[in-house]
């Protein structure tokens, strides 16, 4: 009885799904996805196109019109009216240095927290957990006054320092290393490796994957950061791209060509990092449930 029923059911299922349902639903499904993705992508594509168009044509209603008036004038204007290159170099420098320090510090603390027993470990780790959920607003006022007192306003160091440690990075590295068999490290220690050599020769190669993910996520976070650099960078020469661009927009509100040319400079590195590491980055977001 049951056998026959099962057979007939599965037969039933096979035929209609292949013939009818698949076609109509799948096509509707794709149309819906293309529509939604289009809504997301069109503003981005428009802004990229706008960077290469004369200001008069930027608000042309036909988004897909390409009438050959491409120009690099927006970039020339941008470089002439504001030190785009300086902004770019500041952004690169600050993001790279912050990312490198985040990687080293997160791995070091994550390793310490995961593989060693010592007094006060839980209390210290609690500080990391608290920081994980602490909004930036809760620290920015003393951080700013302290930075001012230390004479670090308007310096790279002042912009980098608060972003150079990441509670999330420490947490992530600890989680990963908790699954590392202790034997591996013990064997190396018995063979006469120093603690530092173990860290250098075993732990770093072992954590390449999560380190790459952390690097991508951290770079994006620092590269896109606006509020803290806005507070600390007070002279044009110290502006990062987001800060420089936002003030450029304030002064030359009408010239969208220039604004979008500068925006492109700010987007390309972020997009590159995202495209290279998209799977890891998306996975990381889905696991952490935390945004920068």
């Amino acid at each position, binding site marked *: 009885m049951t056998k026959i029923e099962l057979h007939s059911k599965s037969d039933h299922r096979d035929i209609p799904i292949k013939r009818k349902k698949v076609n109509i639903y799948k096509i509707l499904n794709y149309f819906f996805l293309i529509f939604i993705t289009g809504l997301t992508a069109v503003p981005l594509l428009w802004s990229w196109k706008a960077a290469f168009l004369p200001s008069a044509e930027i608000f042309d209603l036909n988004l897909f019109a390409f009438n050959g008036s491409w120009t690099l004038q927006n970039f020339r204007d941008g470089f002439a009216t504001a030190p785009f290159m300086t902004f770019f170099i500041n952004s690169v420098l600050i993001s790279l240095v912050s990312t490198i320090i985040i990687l080293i510090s997160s791995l070091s603390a994550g390793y310490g927290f995961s593989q*060693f027993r010592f007094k006060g470990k839980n209390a210290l780790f609690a500080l990391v957990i608290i*920081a994980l*959920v602490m*909004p930036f607003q809760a*620290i920015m*006022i003393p*951080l700013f006054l302290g930075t001012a007192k230390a004479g670090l306003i308007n310096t790279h160091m002042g912009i980098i320092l608060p972003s150079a440690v990441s509670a999330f990075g420490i947490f992530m590295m600890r989680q990963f290393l908790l699954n590392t068999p202790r034997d591996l490290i013990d064997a190396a220690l018995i063979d006469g490796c120093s603690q530092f050599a173990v860290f250098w020769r075993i732990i770093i190669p072992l954590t390449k994957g999560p380190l790459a993910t952390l690097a991508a996520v951290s770079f994006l976070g620092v590269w896109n950061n606006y509020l803290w650099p806005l507070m600390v960078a007070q002279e044009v020469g110290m502006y990062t791209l987001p800060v420089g661009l936002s003030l450029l927009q304030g002064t030359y509100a009408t010239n969208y060509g220039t604004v979008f040319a500068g925006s492109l400079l700010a*987007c390309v590195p972020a997009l590159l990092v995202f495209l290279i590491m998209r799977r890891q980055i998306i996975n990381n977001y889905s696991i952490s449930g935390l945004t920068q």
Partner: protein
Amino acid sequence: MAGELARREARAGLFFVLPVLALFALVNTTPVVISFVYSLTDFTLGSKAKFVGLANYQSLISDSEFLKALIVTLKMGLGLALPGSLLAFLIALAISKGSKTGIFSTILFIPVIYPSVVSAFIWGATLKGDGLINRYLGLESDWLNSVSTALPSLILVLLWTNIGFYIVIVLTGLRGVAPSLYEAASLDGANEWKKLRWITFPLMKPVILFILIIATSDALQIFTQPYLLTGGGPVESTKVLAGLIYEVLFERLEIARASSIAVSLALISASIAVLQYLLVRSRR
């Protein structure tokens, strides 16, 4: 001997942890404590601070500016979460049903990693009086400058920014539903809609709640888009807590008051995090 080994291990552990935690204490833990201390004083720039107890908090309770910003912030959180989770659910469902749909989730994720300043430029140009949207619709409304549309417009911008993230969360949730449940339902004669209604929806409830929590805690920290697109206006209709703190700090130099708002924000944020933790734990 065992004692010596343990001591050595502890030393090595501290060697790896302490330098990092020292930096951490400097730029995170200490500022949190100082924020709280400031909030108990009447510290303004250029005057000597004096301890006032909880007076700042007492005045916050009846401070219409603070309460209004709090309400705007919560509205923003809800405005993001409700349409956001529904939309994310629909899109994630479409992505999970189709094949070769990875490209869609990748493109939808781009705004999440986009510099928020640039998103603000794009939407500023799109929503302004003679911007793209009005040209398309043949309207002349100043979306970001009218009290009735400024906040919804901002929410739309943030929805565009965050939806990819919400989709990824729902997708993770959908993948977690055991295929055997659907198979069992098919055997019992359930059609696609019934499976959606009786298996997917109930199992997605905690995921939706999760998005609600994330959106609210996002809203608590949103600064860039309101700051650049509306400056908190018109008539403070888009002034969020983070924007208010910035203004009280940098324009009025009222450090103690800014600190008390910041600490309140942190407390709300912390309670949301606790809620999130309990939710995640109950799902295990």
